């Protein structure tokens, strides 16, 4: 789960990492008031969970409280990459001497936390990684030892931080790691971390992603989850514990297991069709869960045909079939279904479906071919 910039900055501040003065505004009047309090040039930053906010007009520098009010009224209520802006972070403008990138993430290969830094902050770190990887410093943190002073110091020297600021940089790095662990983050970055013209550190922008598997330890963030960047279907899917991602094609997919769901999308594409979604019902899904999943797919107006691919292990084919029947009894639809059931309680499942008069397939290949043929046919 990704946090907003203002939430990330609250985390930094709680861990004694300096952030700019300022706070959230949800109306132009509030923005004006905060600008008056700050009594300085201020920056307005739209709080939306998408990248490239600055280029899309979501960040503005203004020189008076009145200008803050005017600009805020333009940004608030507007959309950035189709997401409505409901809140602005109003902050003091900072005089920048140097911008660096500082972050931590999971090094999957080594099973450690990776500390990443670059003397070139403020820009897209992935772009630097591609164009000039030598400008990125990577230091592994052993989970049993934690971040040691020498590692943070080496990081400081590698990105050429001036000597008088080493001590304070080490403190920031260690506080940052403490926050990273406390939040169960899988990604946390300050970009840019700036040195001001008067020689202070300020975290000017922040991004934190919390491990979804550890959210049970952070219920306050779950309550505050911002769903404005998610589709109604994705929100509905999460409610039922389904893993759903909307794609651009017209073949709806309902599969058990992430790997098999991906392979089903792959074969559809190989056979010349386009999947409308990724949907994994997980292991051991009940009939109710299956019918919820099916409803989500059927609500997508792009869907011309539906492919259901179930390999029963923990999941029972008869439960899946019962879920399908449940939906078809309630909703009349012209969308053709191609159903392939194998594994646990396959015979019972097929019997339920035979009574409902639905199209079936024995292999994944056959199912995909039939679904693709139907999806092409039904294009007007």
């Amino acid at each position, binding site marked *: 789960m990704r946090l907003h910039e203002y939430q990330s900055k609250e985390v930094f501040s709680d861990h004694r990492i300096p952030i700019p003065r300022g706070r959230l505004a949800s109306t132009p009047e509030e923005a004006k008031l905060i600008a008056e309090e700050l009594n300085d040039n201020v920056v307005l930053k739209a709080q939306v969970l998408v990248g490239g906010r600055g280029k899309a007009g979501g960040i503005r520098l203004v020189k008076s409280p009145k200008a803050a009010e005017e600009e805020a009224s333009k940004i608030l209520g507007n959309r950035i990459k189709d997401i409505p802006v409901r809140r602005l972070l109003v902050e003091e403008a900072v005089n920048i001497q140097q911008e660096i990138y500082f972050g931590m993430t*999971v090094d*999957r*290969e080594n*099973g*450690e*936390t990776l500390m990443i830094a670059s003397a070139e902050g403020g820009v897209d770190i*992935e772009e630097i*990684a*591609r164009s000039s990887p030598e400008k990125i410093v990577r230091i592994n943190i*052993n*989970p*049993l030892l934690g971040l040691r002073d020498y590692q943070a110091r080496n990081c400081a020297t590698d990105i050429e931080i001036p000597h008088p600021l080493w001590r304070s940089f080490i403190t920031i790095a260690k506080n940052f790691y403490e926050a990273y*662990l406390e939040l*169960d983050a*899988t990604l946390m970055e300050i970009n840019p971390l700036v040195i001001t013209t008067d020689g202070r550190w300020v975290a000017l922008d922040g991004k934190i992603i919390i*491990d*979804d*598997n*550890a959210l*049970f*330890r952070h219920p306050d963030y779950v309550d505050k989850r911002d769903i404005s960047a998610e589709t109604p279907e994705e929100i509905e899917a999460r409610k039922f514990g389904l*893993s759903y*991602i909307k*794609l651009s094609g017209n073949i709806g997919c309902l*599969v*058990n*297991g*992430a*790997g*098999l*769901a*991906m*392979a089903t*999308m*792959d*074969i*559809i*594409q*190989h056979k010349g069709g386009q*999947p409308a979604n*990724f949907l*994994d019902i997980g*292991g*051991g899904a009940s009939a109710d869960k299956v019918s919820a999943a099916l409803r989500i797919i059927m609500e997508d107006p792009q869907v011309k045909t539906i492919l259901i691919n179930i*390999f*029963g*292990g*923990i*999941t029972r084919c008869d439960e899946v079939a019962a879920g399908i029947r449940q939906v078809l009894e309630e909703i009349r639809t012209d969308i053709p279904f191609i159903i392939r059931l*194998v*594994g*646990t309680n396959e015979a019972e499942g097929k019997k339920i479906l035979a009574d409902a008069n639905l199209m079936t397939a024995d*292999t*994944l*290949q056959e199912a*995909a071919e039939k679904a693709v043929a139907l999806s092409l046919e039904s294009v007007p």
Partner: protein
Amino acid sequence: MSILINGDTRLIVQGITGHEGMFHTQQMLAYGTNIVAGVTPGKGGEWVLDGKIPVFDSVNTAVEVTGATSSVIFVPARFAADAILEAVDAGIQLIVCITEGIPVKEMLFVKHVIRDRDVCLIGPNSPGIITPGIAKIGIIPGSITKKGNVGVVSRSGTLTYEVVYSLKEAGLGTSTCVGIGGDPIIGTNFINILSHFEGDSQTDVIVMIGEIGGTEEENAATYIANNMTKPVVGFIAGQAAPQNKRMGHAGAIIESGMGDAEGKIRALRNAGVQIAKYPDEIPALIKNK
């Protein structure tokens, strides 16, 4: 011969009294796996499954009393890392963790603890291991496999079933099938299992099923090019997956262009691995070997 498990495997089930644990203990027993005990803290002294299997409070006691060598874990996610560490501490040599959804931070600690120990951790988020006709540890349905000379190693669950089933339908059997798990941090990687298969006399050809995310497949490609004499056939799931969208489990995500299917397929092809375009193509590629 087979890899990781054989007729001498003495297995305990951690979380045996839970719904999943109990169901799959029955399935494993029916398949012929030698299950010597279960562990559920607080339920020590009970006997389950018509008095066939004793339950202990700790892995330590279970090992002392029964001489268990292996463990399979069905404990809920928030307690599962602890269950792994408990098994390591009790001297279990093979730990198969079925549990999905263990926080990454917990796994970083586990990974570091097992690094210096003589223990093999499969998973977490693994469907387990099956050696057809001998034993199975985990949840892979026994009926979909048959004994043979194809070694199967995979990062996913039901996709693995799909593949071993299509092998069986094509008249091909499996020596051992290992699901290494779909999480970002796992105990045993492709390379470990490939090296086992390379040394296994029953295995003549290997099927490797990867998916998007991480660099496991790329590393395996380098290993295959330098160390493997046996032919490898591969499939990578997620060719149609968009970037920055997590496909189900925590490991399958293409981040900043890294870990996409294209790169993995290229690396494996360069290592001499034949790549199937979709799972049903795998049996034909094996028969060509």
